[in-house]
């Protein structure tokens, strides 16, 4: 019998969300634990050093280390420091898995999801951290607004095309990734502050709100009536909040386990632990193959009902947009 693997996700997020679970990948049992450090980058580095050699893989949550914008690669300085805090145990940020998983999730939703993606107005609160999703949404025929400047930097400029997003990234990403992560992204207790609506008009114009959940939540408007949300990690509390705001559908790109969707860093760490390879030896094809072997599909939650739909359901009409969800 294959020995179980141990994986710890060290997250810059709140320790209030810590949890443990067991998942099975490729027939191997993986015990996963999340440990939040409440936004303290130094504490994260110390914890990673403590775990080094004690577990099979470490996931890094709450920030992306590697950003891929097409073929351009950027490295977040704070994250690089954390990757280097362990010498023996592989540390991964989930970005490789995200590059494979999220386009797969969008393609699945385009073919089988309850919402027609072609022509759908989409707000991606940030796309630089999930360019694969941005490309897949465009390929699916969505009309996407990229909110990186609006929501990361507070600059009221919606980016409306992938070429423009690439142009902005070439100008900005190299330098922005050198800044302390807390300047750009909610970490620690900032993740628990009540949402403060920013650019509610952009949320209102979208049928689908996509991107990192902490960023979506940080700037949520009071109402999300009949909208769909495509994101990564949510808790039961998050789902209840979205439902209370009137959102119709929740699509999470990582599967629900014990009622919770795990971050890509957790799953990537689990994959590394199960495959027994160094992260740099993993190729997108390896990940895609494994995801197909486990029958990967995104989770679809009918928020008012609080469960997945029985079949492909037609969304109800949205006021003023001719029936688009």
């Amino acid at each position, binding site marked *: 019998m294959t020995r179980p693997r141990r994986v710890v996700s060290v997250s810059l997020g709140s320790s209030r969300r810590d949890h443990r679970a067991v998942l099975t990948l490729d027939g191997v049992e993986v015990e996963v634990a999340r440990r939040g450090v409440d936004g303290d980058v130094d504490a994260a580095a110390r914890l990673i050093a403590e775990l080094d050699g004690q577990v099979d893989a470490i996931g890094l949550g709450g920030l992306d280390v590697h950003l891929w914008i097409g073929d351009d690669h950027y490295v977040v300085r704070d994250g690089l420091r954390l990757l280097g805090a362990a010498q023996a145990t592989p540390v991964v940020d989930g970005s490789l898995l995200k590059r494979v998983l999220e386009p797969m999730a969008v393609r699945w939703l385009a073919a089988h999801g309850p919402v027609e993606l072609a022509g759908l107005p989409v707000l991606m609160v940030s796309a630089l951290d999930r360019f694969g999703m941005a490309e897949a949404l465009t390929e699916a025929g969505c009309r996407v607004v990229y909110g990186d400047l609006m929501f990361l930097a507070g*600059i009221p400029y919606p980016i409306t095309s992938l070429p423009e997003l690439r142009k902005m990234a070439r100008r900005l990403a190299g330098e922005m990734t050198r800044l302390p992560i807390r300047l750009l992204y909610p970490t620690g207790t900032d993740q628990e502050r009540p949402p403060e609506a920013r650019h509610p008009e952009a949320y209102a114009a979208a049928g689908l709100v996509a991107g990192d959940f902490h960023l979506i939540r940080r700037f949520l408007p009071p109402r999300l009536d009949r909208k769909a949300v495509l994101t990564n990690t949510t808790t039961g509390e998050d789902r209840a909040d979205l439902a209370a705001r009137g959102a119709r559908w929740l699509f999470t790109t990582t599967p629900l386990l014990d009622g919770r969707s795990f971050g890509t860093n957790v799953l990537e760490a689990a994959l590394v632990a199960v495959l027994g390879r160094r992260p740099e030896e993993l190729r997108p094809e390896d990940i895609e193959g494994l995801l197909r072997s486990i029958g990967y599909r995104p989770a679809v939650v009918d928020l008012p009902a609080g469960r997945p739909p029985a079949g492909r359901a037609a969304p109800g009409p949205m006021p003023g947009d001719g029936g688009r969800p």
Partner: protein
Amino acid sequence: MTGSAEMAEVLARFAEQFNRMPEMPRMTQGWDRWVVVRARDAGWTHALRVEGGRMTVGPGPVAGADITLDGPADTLASIFRGELSPTEPYLDGSIAVHSTEEDMLKLDVFTLMVWGE
């Protein structure tokens, strides 16, 4: 060391570039600010005014400036010439930025936008 007249020219070129960019009026919507640039080693102070999406340059100091950049004259000149990103001297402490973090971040973005890839 970069003198006051030379810095005034550097800032004028920066403002010219800024005003040429079609994105700036929208990007700076609602962001009317005074930015003071001060070199203690050279003894000069200049001011940039962003208003209605356009940037103008004038003499400093300005009472109640929203953002003040303090640093060596040559470093400040390099930043506004586009030879040096503002991030590195800020992180290593060779320049100080007195402002809200949000304003600092925006100015950083606008500077990078002006000087491009």
